[in-house]
């Protein structure tokens, strides 16, 4: 959401990225998020120390494609397990050690299960990192409290070729907005380390 914004240089020579409002209460954040979304800013995001039910809906986020990654990878793992076992134990190098037919599906099932879970699990982690743009050494959290006990809404400065369908961003107006929806503290964010 944030990578769209390009900088507006201020008088002090710092680059303005946007404003961030802090909340002490997840429910207040949720209510504020709905209002900020209605205001229709181009760049806006929320930060919370833990998942909050309904926040993705309040923010209007689309569902993550992650489940499809998990499903596809799980299926791949399942097929790989089949091919691996059928090829090695029944075709390429058949050795009878258990008095069972070479091609014995019951004996293959545990490995099918394990590879399904392994592929699915690893791909889910990889997909999660990919979709979240992680790991990220460039950006820093603008305040450590959002990983601990505070909740924040960020309204960003959009790209210069501003899209007319969104509400225009000004620092003072966005600050007003965040205060109006109940932010306890509002800060201006400059491109310092974080961007």
């Amino acid at each position, binding site marked *: 959401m944030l990578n769209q914004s390009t900088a507006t240089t201020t008088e002090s020579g710092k680059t303005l990225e946007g404003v961030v409002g802090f909340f002490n*209460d997840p*429910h207040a954040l*949720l*209510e504020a998020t709905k209002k900020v979304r209605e205001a229709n800013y181009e760049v806006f995001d929320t930060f919370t120390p833990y998942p909050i*039910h*309904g926040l993705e809906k*309040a923010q209007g986020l689309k*569902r993550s494609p992650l*489940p499809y990654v998990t*499903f596809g990878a799980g299926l791949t793992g399942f097929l790989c397990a089949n091919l691996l076992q059928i090829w090695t134990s029944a075709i390429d190098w058949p050795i009878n050690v*258990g*008095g*069972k037919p070479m091609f014995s599906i*019951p*004996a293959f*099932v*545990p490995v099918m299960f394990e590879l399904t879970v392994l592929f699915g699990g690893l791909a889910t982690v990889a997909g999660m990192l990919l979709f979240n743009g992680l790991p990220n050494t460039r950006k820093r959290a603008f305040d450590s409290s959002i990983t601990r006990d505070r909740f924040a809404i960020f309204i960003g400065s959009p790209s210069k070729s501003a899209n007319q369908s969104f509400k225009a961003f000004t620092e003072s107006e966005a600050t007003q907005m965040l205060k109006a929806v109940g932010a306890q503290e509002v800060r201006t964010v400059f491109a310092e380390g974080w961007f």
Partner: protein
Amino acid sequence: MATHPSHSHEIKNPGPWEVPSSLRISFIALAVIGFALFGAGLKVDSHRAWASFLHNHFFFMSLALGGLFFAAIQWLTGAMWSAPLRRVAESFTSYLPVAILTFLVIGFGVHDIYHWSHAEHVQGDIVLEGKAGYLSVPFFLIRNVIAMSVWFFFAWKMVGNSLKQDSEGGVALTFKNKALAPAFLILFAISFTMASFDQLMSLDPHWFSTMFGVYCFAGLFYSTLALTAVVTVTLKRRGLLEGIVSEEHLHDLGKFMFAFTTFWAYIGFSQFMLIWYANLPEETGYFLNRFEGQWLWVSIFLLVGKFLVPFLVLLPRENKRNQNILFNIGIYMLGAQWIDILWVVQPEFYKDGPRCFWIEAGTLLGFVGLFGFIVTRFLSKNNVVAIKDPRLEEAVFHHHQ
């Protein structure tokens, strides 16, 4: 979370379910017709009728006990999400005393059902002579009645506390149940294993599988969750759970059903694979019986129909949140569990294939009528939601935003 003003709205008590008299009469009619057919079945083929009686007794006993198991794990873990659904599971336990009665009825059919109950068969059979001390009719009846009485005692205590809380409120009764729940769950694990060994596994007294109890438990919870979904959606369709059970709760229940579909397959396969791999003659008979004749198709149905179909149906998020899909798959899963117990019981009597006609249908309908009547009676006398449960508010509003 009393500090949040947005949480202060009251949850309207939906009260009991005014069960339509047509439904009640249908259940009574089913019970009467069904047990009449069972009675006729006794005259025609007593083995078959008694096998069917045992089959249905175990199926519905599992549902009643499963309701208590579901409620007990919610109390033990302090789960929030399930508070609006728990009363539905509690309602199943009202059938437990009837399950004790149907077990006592089995006392009359012991010789038709259990091979080991005939002294002349035990004589000269080394294995059965060795087991004779355990597999004796009086001991069998007494220990199972004790086990079922223990379940009934805990249902009476814990569901009683839950119902009392509807008028008294407060948290004390929740803590009482939290203390009772682990005691019940430990006794449940032991006694249900025993009951499934005794009532089902001893149909083939030569065979043994230490996983059999877990297998029956997997089926118990599989079907209990399915029935919870069916009853919850039924109540929701009648507008009783308006503003209480949202699609978020159904989603959670759907995830639970999905998980225990997989759990059943995992346990079922584990039992099969260990026996298949070791290939010991004293163990393989059970599966050989079930891979012969028409039983092979029933075995394949269990793999495809009891596992793969619900697994794929419950996989997409949208399906778990859709009350119609959840209702239909719930009915389907109950059917699959019924066929599973048929597959456990009947091959011990008929090696060539399943028998499923008017004796089986009649006995099933009789039990459906009895179970339906008792459970709807409970729901018509008590609130369909544990309205003063201290976790209800959080469960309802936490999910609603």
